[in-house]
């Protein structure tokens, strides 16, 4: 193959903040003091935090250097399965930083915040339309927070019905946040196994669904990148027993404008704006996890809700059945602006196109790599495909080794060891913003690595060799945790 994308170059070491600086420096322009000082009672004052004192140039170099030890979507392909690492358009960043939005106080009177309320009102409608649901709350701050909110809605629903239930069905392919969210609401997750095709069978659900089960939590498309074909029948079963269907919509990027979740019996679902709707991940957040519901659950949505009253927008609190609040204010407003901008600049046709190309890219990789890597489920996939290290076991090369070696080739590794149903899973989600050329390079790189696995396994065991640090000892980190300097 031609020269790998990854190479090495000069970068700079940088010590920890408190190993730098000198007392008396300051990187902040202290405002002029225009009032007399009036000292607070000694009783109440401490000696102040032990922060280093740095100049502006100290701070700028520190973070400029650190940034160069990082890899982002802007650096290269980041096929992290289940995370939808698509390109985040720069214009969306610009919109979110408009002073009117960025510096607005959350408790401004509605008369002074019409722009923000209008944007939120419209975004709620767009998301309801995209999912085929009836109403939306933007308050949850991330996917898991959306799950929690959704389960709280289910809880409120059953409570109102007068008969609370104790369990929620969760398939074995579910993301860890699903059972965790279920448990947070006092429900017991009931595990159902996906079938040999990697999806839920009607029978499996029928077997466990009963009157004490509040509902089911299905990720669709699921974490194997497969569409849950039986979802409608499953929904019927669940509904028949008075349960509700929760859809984890983290993988909505596969089916925008194609599948209407509302039509397949979903009662409540969350979206990840920081995945499907292109808002950047910021190295782990902030995200935004709106929840969309069918009308039967609307009364329970968190307050305040943005409503329109003859052309004006107001925040309404008066929903007696509401679950209350899941965030202090309105949720990740700054993130919503970016998702809103994305939807407005894409329009209906391009959103659908995006899903089609995301699925095309994933299937293309699946087809071109399945000879090289063991493919867990050899069926048409949606936005991602899941391989494993099965074929490399002989050479004692693991999924982790191959992941680390990919770094040397200039690619961020896929998600590894998830979903748990595939042992040594390698979960590849390219997203639609990767061009055929990028994807071909990724495929070549993976093939080259699999060759190395055969010919020179230690190259992989020792990987990565090009990063600023060699492979890090995560076990030691957990054994004797050092969490602060």
């Amino acid at each position: 193959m031609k020269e790998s994308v990854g190479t090495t170059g000069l970068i700079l070491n940088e010590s920890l903040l408190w190993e730098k600086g000198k007392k008396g420096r300051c990187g902040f322009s202290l405002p002029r003091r225009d009032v007399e000082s009036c000292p607070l009672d000694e009783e109440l004052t401490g000696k102040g935090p032990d922060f280093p004192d740095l100049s502006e140039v100290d701070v700028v170099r520190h973070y400029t250097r650190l940034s160069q030890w990082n890899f982002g979507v802007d650096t290269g392909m980041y096929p992290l399965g289940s995370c939808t690492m698509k390109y985040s358009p720069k214009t969306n960043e610009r919109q979110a930083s408009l002073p009117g939005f960025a510096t607005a106080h959350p408790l401004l009177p509605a008369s002074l915040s019409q722009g923000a309320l209008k944007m939120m009102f419209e975004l709620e409608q767009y998301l309801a339309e995209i999912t085929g649901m009836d109403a939306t709350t933007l308050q949850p701050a991330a996917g898991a927070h959306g799950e929690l909110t959704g389960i709280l809605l289910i809880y409120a629903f059953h409570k109102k019905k007068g008969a609370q239930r104790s369990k929620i069905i969760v398939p074995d392919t579910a993301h860890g946040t699903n059972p965790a969210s279920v448990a947070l609401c006092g429900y017991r997750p009931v595990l159902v196994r996906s079938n040999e095709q990697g999806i839920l069978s009607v029978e499996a659900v029928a077997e466990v669904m009963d009157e004490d089960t509040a509902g089911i939590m299905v990720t669709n498309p699921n974490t194997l990148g497969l569409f849950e074909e039986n979802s409608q029948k499953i929904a019927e079963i669940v509904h028949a027993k008075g349960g509700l269907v929760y859809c984890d919509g983290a993988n909505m990027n596969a089916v925008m404008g194609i599948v209407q979740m509302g039509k397949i019996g979903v009662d409540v679902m969350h979206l990840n704006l920081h995945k499907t709707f292109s808002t950047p991940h910021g190295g782990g957040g902030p995200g935004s996890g709106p929840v969309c519901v069918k009308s039967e659950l609307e009364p329970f949505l968190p307050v305040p809700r943005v409503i329109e009253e003859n052309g004006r927008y107001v925040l309404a609190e008066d929903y007696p059945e509401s679950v209350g609040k899941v965030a202090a204010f309105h949720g990740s407003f700054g993130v919503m602006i970016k998702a809103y901008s994305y939807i407005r600049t894409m329009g209906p046709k391009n959103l659908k196109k995006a899903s089609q190309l995301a699925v095309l890219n994933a299937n293309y990789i699946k087809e071109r790599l399945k000879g090289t890597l063991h493919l867990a489920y050899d069926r048409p996939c949606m936005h991602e495909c899941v391989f494993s290290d099965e074929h490399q076991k002989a050479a004692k090369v693991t999924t982790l080794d191959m992941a680390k070696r990919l770094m040397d080739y200039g690619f961020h590794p896929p998600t590894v060891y998830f979903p748990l149903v595939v042992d040594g899973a390698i979960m590849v989600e390219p997203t639609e913003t990767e061009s055929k050329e990028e994807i071909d390079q990724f495929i070549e790189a993976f093939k080259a690595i699999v060759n190395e696995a055969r010919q020179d396994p230690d190259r992989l065991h020792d990987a990565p060799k090009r990063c600023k640090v060699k492979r890090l000892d995560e076990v030691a980190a957990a054994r004797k945790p050092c969490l602060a300097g």
Partner: protein
Amino acid sequence: MLYLPHTGEDIVSMLQVVGVDDLDDLFSIVPEDCRCKGDLNLPEQLSEWELNDHMEALSHSMAVSPEYRVFAGAGSYEHFIPASVSYLLGRSEFVTSYTPYQPEMSQGTLQAIYEYQTLAARLLGMEIATASHYDGATALAESLLMAIRVTRRKKVATSSLIHPLYRQVVKTYFEPTGYEVVELGYLKNGVTDLAELDDMDDLAAVAVQSPNFFGCIENLQAVGEKAHDKEALFIASFTEALAYGLLKNPGSQGADIACGEGQSLGIPRSFGGPALGMLASTKKFMRSLPGRLVGQTKDLDGKRGFVLTLATREQHIRREKATSNICTNNSLCALAAAMYMASVGGTGIRELARLNHDKAEYLKKELKKAGFTITFDSPTFNEFVVEFPDGFEATYERLLEKKIVPGISLAPYYPELANHYLLCVTETMSRDDMDALVREVKS
């Protein structure tokens, strides 16, 4: 389309490899009746330039400084943010990376968050801090649940002077759990009535906010003692992190957990979010903490490096037994806070906090002079409660016309406090701004 790189030929050749005829065939497994019929009913796409016009128009309808002077805090504070912080935070290696699951290629984020954890712990006087939570309210809710896990008790006591919206979030989180929340009333001087604790038992935690929602500084030490007498955890909550540049920190007052909102530390208010949930504790509770933690380790060559650690607490390993369901947190906000704390520095933050306090005192004094009542006489930091005369609503509206927002009305949260307003003054308010406010409320 700008963001869709595929050309016609690309699509054709890729479809061939996949072995289907057209893009729709990729979805043949999707049952007919699950499909969308026709296009989504959304507005047609805008060009980048149409978007600019549209968003500028929306943003112009918002009341923000310098045009407006907003004397509102109540959990969201206006503080200056250096241009250097905004620039650095915008570097795409930070912005466009995911949670650092692959540490060798994420050392920038990891060292920066490790530094954030350290500075956060130092600010609060605690031993360790988490990598971030969604906001101050969810950090408090998670802290209370953590106390319940740790103590195996089912009841918590929270001050009624904790931010009312935080208390609503706690209520929402607790609803399905069956755990009990009892609220502590407040005294005439605007601090929590700790006496009420005396005849409470089996408390998992006592949570008090300082400065509290009225802006008053609580006697944390007393709270700590009472809580510990009852073998309950002492949770110190806060909405204005900058206060600890000047005040005794929670740790020094015996807090087991300190949690709250870090927005003041270099994060734009952005209509309330994204924010920064801060959560810190003593080492003792390390393995019970909710949320992500970054730890120091070594690489194969013995070189220092950083990784996400103690994952066994977390949902992706522990599933339903995890200490929390949180996954994505507010990492970039934590990074902003770290950059901000590093820029202000130890010497700077103290002077900055002083300035906040002294300016608020100035406005207090001027309002008193003007004949208004400062309801509570306990010391405050940069917020305080004023009682305005009956019919102030009209004045309030008039001030809005004049592009002044004279604080937040307390009545919705404390019906007994009709005509009471919570005012906030930070370093961004000049003496002239404050004099103008006083002039207007008087007239």
